């Protein structure tokens, strides 16, 4: 039997699933026929989960129970200023969970962010399984290149909760490069410019004979399409406030409508010179009279609102080139990824910056999932045709004397890798050393993300500076960091695996995985029951017709009537699939008996 593995682009706004079938990557459309599924989850009044299009469709009417853009929050802690910013702007409730973790609230129930992502992953998995007719557990999930360890780990947790076996987490631009590079085999250096809904990533890669070598990667996890939307929303809100002295930001329903219209207007402005924004009855004034928004936004106005965002992306591109040790002229091809790159201003700016037109024939919405699927397929099947040489996205190191961050593995180091430094004791007879493992780009230790902390004890007593201690960082192909501290003279050592430490405890993950599986099982049970009732209804109808037309002897007619009565009761309040099916069988038997008797 062929084994399949999913390639999943878990986006801020849209997600996409791909598999390799008979050597060809394909994007699988969801049940609504779309190739991308909105990354939106909601809980309906009935307690039923709504995911994707279904959730998006009721986002306005059920704003407080509809969760979106969770990729902006995943893997962060509640105290993160960026999270606080989200709390202020997002319409759903965000609360503090255990050990500084974040929880979102829908219908009074708290969910961790990996649980929300798991629902989306589960939906995509279902889409693929329905298409293939088999069950699939292996998957590669993509994340922005700039995701730190905790964010990656939280994404793996999401996969686990969804019952997936996450083969690997790969970077979105790298995935896009794989998809591009397997079609364009010539040796080249490319830039992948990915401006999605929530994040911006730029990676420089060289592609050579099946080897994808990431030269540098950088980006901004808080720069994406939503920022463009927000600029337009701010503009509209400001104008409205000027005119009516009403702050629309206090009305979640109005904000929801504004958000949707602003995004629509933004997309329209990719095709047209101007667009109309029409929001009747957006709110009422003090007297209770209805107020409307009815305005025209021109492309020029919009471009002026967002030009600084675009300039920000170019600045980051400059850094990426510098880190890769190349110049614009070394770039053979620019690959645009992400819905936002459809904006003409973005395309113009990129073309101008790289001195060349971006590559054509690439679907910016699908290319990431396709690359992930190609990589997943390559990994699980013998004969890995291409090899991915990815890099560490951020500096890794430890905190040293004076609260400084000492980098041991610099960012953009090809993984797997090993780096080590030798430290010495700082006071006489020092027998232990506190080691704080950090990731980030700030000089001050405290401003970086803390990955782990451990004490290396059992150091030989001696005068300050007399004991050499080697700190070794090992990053494996999955990006897992291992740290070893070792007394070089005695070979005494201490080893810790740093990564795979997420905001959730293993017990929490286990419980969430179970809850998710239980929910899906119950859901499936409901679906099966519904199906069974449908079959019962069909059988009942046949029997009723037969009863009406055939002239049945009195005892049989009585029996039939009784059967119909019981069947109708069961349709009204079905209990279990087994009982419903049994009733259907009874009725079908009766039908064949009557038919035989005639």
């Amino acid at each position, binding site marked *: 039997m062929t084994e399949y593995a999913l390639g999943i682009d878990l986006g801020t706004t849209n997600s996409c699933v791909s598999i390799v079938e008979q050597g060809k990557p394909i994007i699988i459309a969801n049940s609504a026929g779309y190739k991308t599924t909105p990354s939106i989850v909601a809980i309906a009044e009935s307690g039923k989960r709504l995911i994707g299009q279904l959730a998006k469709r009721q986002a306005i009417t059920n704003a407080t129970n509809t969760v979106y853009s969770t990729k902006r929050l995943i893997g962060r802690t509640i105290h993160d200023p960026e999270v606080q910013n989200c709390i202020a702007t997002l319409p759903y409730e965000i609360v503090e969970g255990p050990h500084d973790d974040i929880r979102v609230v829908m219908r009074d129930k708290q969910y961790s962010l990996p649980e929300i992502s798991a629902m989306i992953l589960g939906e995509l998995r279902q889409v693929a399984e329905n298409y293939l007719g088999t069950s699939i557990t292996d998957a590669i999930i993509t994340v922005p290149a700039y995701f730190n360890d905790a964010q990656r780990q939280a994404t793996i947790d999401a996969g686990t909760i969804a019952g997936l076996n996450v083969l690997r987490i790969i970077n979105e631009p790298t995935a896009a490069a794989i998809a591009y590079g397997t079609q364009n085999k010539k040796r080249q250096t490319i830039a992948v410019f990915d401006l999605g809904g929530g994040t911006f990533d730029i990676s420089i890669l060289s592609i050579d*004979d099946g080897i994808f070598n990431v030269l540098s990667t950088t980006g901004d996890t808080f720069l994406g399409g939503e920022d463009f939307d927000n600029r337009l929303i701010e503009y509209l809100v400001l104008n409205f406030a000027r005119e009516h002295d009403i702050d629309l930001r206090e009305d979640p329903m109005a904000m929801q409508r504004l958000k949707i219209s602003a995004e629509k207007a933004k997309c329209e402005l990719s095709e047209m010179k101007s667009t109309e924004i029409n929001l009747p009855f957006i709110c009422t004034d003090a007297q209770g009279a209805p107020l409307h928004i009815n305005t025209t936004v021109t492309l020029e106005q919009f471009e002026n609102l967002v030009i600084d965002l675009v300039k920000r992306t170019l600045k980051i591109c400059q850094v990426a080139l510098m880190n890769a040790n190349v110049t614009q002229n070394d770039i053979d091809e620019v690959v645009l990824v992400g819905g936002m790159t459809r904006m003409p201003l973005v395309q113009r700016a990129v073309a101008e910056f790289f001195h060349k037109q971006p590559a054509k024939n690439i679907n910016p919405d699908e290319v990431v999932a396709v690359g992930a699927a190609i990589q997943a397929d390559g990994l*699980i099947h013998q004969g*890995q045709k291409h090899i991915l*040489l990815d890099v560490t996205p951020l500096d890794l190191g430890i905190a040293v004397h004076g609260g400084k961050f000492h980098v041991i593995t610099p960012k953009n180091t090809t993984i797997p*890798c*090993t780096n080590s430094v030798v430290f010495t004791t700082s006071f006489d007879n020092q027998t232990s050393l506190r080691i704080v493992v950090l990731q980030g780009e700030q000089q001050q230790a405290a401003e970086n993300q803390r990955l782990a902390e451990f004490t290396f004890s059992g150091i030989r007593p001696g005068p300050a500076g007399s004991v050499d201690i080697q700190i070794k960082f090992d990053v494996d*192909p999955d990006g897992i960091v291992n740290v070893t501290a070792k007394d070089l003279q005695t070979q005494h050592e201490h080893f810790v695996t740093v990564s795979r430490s997420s905001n959730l405890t293993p017990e929490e993950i286990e419980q969430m995985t179970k809850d998710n599986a239980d929910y899906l099982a119950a859901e499936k049970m409901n679906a099966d029951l519904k199906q069974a009732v449908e079959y019962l209804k069909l059988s009942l109808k046949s029997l009723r017709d037969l009863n009406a037309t055939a002239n049945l002897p009195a005892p049989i007619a009585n029996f039939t009537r009784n059967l119909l009565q019981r069947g109708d009761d069961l349709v009204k309040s079905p209990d279990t699939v087994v009982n419903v099916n049994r009733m259907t069988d009874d009725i079908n038997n009766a039908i064949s008996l009557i038919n035989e008797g005639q």
Partner: protein
Amino acid sequence: MKESLHINPEIVARRCAVKSLDYRQLTPLDWIVLDFADGLKSFSELSRLIPAEPEDIATAYYHLRLLGLITWQSSNNTSRTGAEQNRPETSRSGMSAGVGQSSLNRSSVNPGIATQNPSRSGSNQSLVGVPQQSVTAGVSPSGISQLPNAGAMRDSSLRMRSVISLTPAVSGYSDEVCAQYLPPRLFTTFRRFQPTLLNASLDIPTEAQVFIEFIHENLSSMSPCDLLGLPEGTTDKALIRQAYLNRTKQFHPDRYFRKNTGAFAPRIAAIFKAISSAFATLQAQ
């Protein structure tokens, strides 16, 4: 110990002339092994004649093989006639350099049959009609060289004749691929193999296991150029890059994703890391 061994400069010069080798690349033990190897003695038998451990002798064998001074060859039932015809010459040429053995070199082997045959490890005599193997000193024109299999490595008391190598066709490795594993500069400071490490049940061809172990054991004495398989002092960026890509294909851990690599997994990872830092070093020059 090795330094005290006797070297006959004349033989050295003659053999080196064949492959225009620098004889300084050979360790004293290599020379002695070359002198004693007749294709019939096992490592432990040799160890009784030469003051060295069987493992060291095995190491010398690999070194010699790397240099192309000996070839392991094998023959089986299908090429029996050829083997018989060539046998007298083969065993004689065990000591003489430069004798071509091309008729035997390409023969394929069925390791299953060969290892099950008790006559191979039990007797010293060549039996007509059973597969035969011999070790030949000398350079084959086709440059083909083969290695003994894991079983033989594990038990060095096995007769050398019963050493069976996997042919490229069996191992899935072409000679070109094998050749890429070899650093051009050879080392006078060999670390010893751990024959027990080799494991035929792993998803790595035995030949590759040997190379992995060889490189891993010598990592600390290899320069960046050695690691990439480049001549010392290479500065051509394109060459360096190409060499790095080639090495990546061989040693990137993903090449063995979900494969049973046993004790080799950390070795492969260590080699790859060394290779990428070697590349970074050369790149930065």
